[in-house]
């Protein structure tokens, strides 16, 4: 692993963290697809800014791109609030339109500008180290690493400073407004930050990877916890894991790094979806099994208690007749009765089942008398 590899990995990790932080807020507000809309729309800002300043390295391009991302969000809102189009349709309208405008402009300028639409979608992570920041003759690491690093730092500072109001606005904007916190200010703040993230990250990572990294780690984190602070920490962690894993896999297979990172984001999410402690598929499956078992035990206990002192007890509570009375297959009766015996909820005297005091209490609770 040489210096160039290390620099590439650094860029990938910083980009992943920047996206994960901004993306967590979008996912929480059910605005995941806004990431998609923003990341497609910024191309227009870049092209327009380029037409105005004619310099691909100019910071005006950054500003133009960020503004066009915010403009896209504003347009989506406008369609929603003023023009009566639903959110999903509004997004589906806005970003193809802005993207089309950009593609047309690029096609008209093709002879004079090296704006490769392909690079916009795929990113140039592999080439990031070729563009270092130089002061005098010494180079201080890739330019995108500095940009993304600054972005991560600013995001962290802002989130720490405004954590409390941000949290209130994000989960209950009506309450926030009533205690004098302006929801609009924070919403547009986060939108601008998300747009800026897309802009800084997409040069290195490509617009689609930005979407995957904004949505994937945050969604994975939400499966593990429902506390905002923990979700943020976990999202950053998952983003780092995905970026590192994707980097090494991509380098090993010699394929597109950003594509591999996107795939790894999905892979990490898939693992979380299966394995997360409470929300995970396996945990839910186990919980369901437990609940079914519990319900069956309860049913058995209630049956036994109902017939406890009745004359037909010898018929109703006989172990080998239970399958008829409970309408269960014999194997199930075996299973449930054995578990109940082990838990001391049921006694068995010569094939005749009865409740223990503990079992009686449970049955009583279930029936509710």
């Amino acid at each position, binding site marked *: 692993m040489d210096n160039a590899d290390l620099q590439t990995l650094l860029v990938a990790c910083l980009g992943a963290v920047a996206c994960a932080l901004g993306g967590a807020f979008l996912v929480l507000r059910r605005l995941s697809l806004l990431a998609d809309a923003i990341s497609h729309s910024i191309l227009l800002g870049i092209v327009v800014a380029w037409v105005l300043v004619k310099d691909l390295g100019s910071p005006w391009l950054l500003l133009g791109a960020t503004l066009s991302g915010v403009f896209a969000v504003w347009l989506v809102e406008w369609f929603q609030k003023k023009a009566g189009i*639903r959110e*999903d*349709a509004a997004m*589906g309208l806005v970003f193809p339109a802005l*993207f*089309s405008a950009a593609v047309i402009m690029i096609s008209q300028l093709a002879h004079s500008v090296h704006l490769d639409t392909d690079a916009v979608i795929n990113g140039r992570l592999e080439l990031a180290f070729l563009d270092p920041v130089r002061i005098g003759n010494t180079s201080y690491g890739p330019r995108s690493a500095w940009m993304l690093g600054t972005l991560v730092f600013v995001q962290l500072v802002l989130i720490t400073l405004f954590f409390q109001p941000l949290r209130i606005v994000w989960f209950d904007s009506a309450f926030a407004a009533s205690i004098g916190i302006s929801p609009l200010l924070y919403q547009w703040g986060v939108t601008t930050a998300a747009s800026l993230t897309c802009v800084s990250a997409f040069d290195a990572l490509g617009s*689609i990877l930005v979407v995957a990294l904004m*949505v994937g780690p945050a*969604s994975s984190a939400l499966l593990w916890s429902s506390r905002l602070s923990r979700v943020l920490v976990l999202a950053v962690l998952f983003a780092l894991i995905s970026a590192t894993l994707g980097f090494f896999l991509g380098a090993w297979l010699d394929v597109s790094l950003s594509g591999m990172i996107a795939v790894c984001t999905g892979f990490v999410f898939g693992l979380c979806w299966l394995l997360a402690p409470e929300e995970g598929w396996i945990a839910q499956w186990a919980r369901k099994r437990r609940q079914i078992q519990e319900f069956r035990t309860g049913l058995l206990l209630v049956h036994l208690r109902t017939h406890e002192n009745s004359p037909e007890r010898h018929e109703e509570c006989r172990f080998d007749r239970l399958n008829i009375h409970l309408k269960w297959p014999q194997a199930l009766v075996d299973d449930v009765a054995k578990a109940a015996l082990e838990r001391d909820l049921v006694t068995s005297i010569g094939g005749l089942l009865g409740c223990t005091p503990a079992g009686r209490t449970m049955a009583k609770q279930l029936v509710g008398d």
Partner: protein
Amino acid sequence: MKAMDGTILAISYEINPALVSVVLGTALLGLATGALGSLAVLRRNSLLGDALSHAAYPGLLAGFLLSGTKSVGLMVLGAILAAAMALYLTNLLGKGGRVRPDAALALVMGCFFGIAMVLQSHLQQNPSAAQAGLKDYLFGQAGLLLEEDIPLLVCLALLVLFVLGWGWSRWKIITFDRSHALSLGIHVPFWDMLYSFLLILSVVIGLQVAGVVLMSALLVMPGCASRYWTTRMSSLVTLSGITGAFLGIGGTFTADELSWPPGPTIVLLGFIWLFISYGAFEIRRKKRALRQPFSPGNSFTPPPFPIPGKAPSNG
């Protein structure tokens, strides 16, 4: 027969003959996606088309990788399979409320496109002449529509129109009131599947014309624009189909005239048409408001949906 018609048309109006098949193709695709997309708009999953078109791309590449040539059959099959898988995954993840549906959609789309990027970079390492046109699917190359493609597009348009017309009353009930549809004994999952199948089919076929990124606009724009002109579902679907077809025709001619890329031109034209529709709607609304002063109902509400058995609230 078709080809002959095309030539006659071309001669009589002095149009570039190659353009005729392009115009016909985009018009047919616009018709199919417009009609189908209006349903997507009503069902509130307009962005599904976007996700499916992103997800179909890796399937396309995988088909190419397997066959080694640009065999359309295998590529289309791969694209359909990939899109169907993405749709299944999105539904699976979004079910049960553990993952937000929008997040599931965005994530599946991102990952599938990541796979596409991986495949693409793998292909680029051993370049061959055959893969030259693969990138056209990313941004679309309507200019490459040939006469041979027209029958396929005719079939697609006819299939969409036939299926929509065949189950019209059911589509209507399912779109507006799913639980009512279930209570009537309509097999909703079957119709959902049919709808998804048509959507996937038109997305995959449309990829070549509109490209991955702009496919969703072809689905959504005609529906949204037509929504300003009508509140009846039958006229909405008809109008969206016609709008889509005209956008295809107009966009292709405009693109040819200005030598712009056709896909984006169609989308931009659609966007302009959307604004015109909105303006017309606003003017009619203002006029109506002037006719009936002092009614609180005249404050702006989105165009009401015609719920069966309930009169629209605004006029």
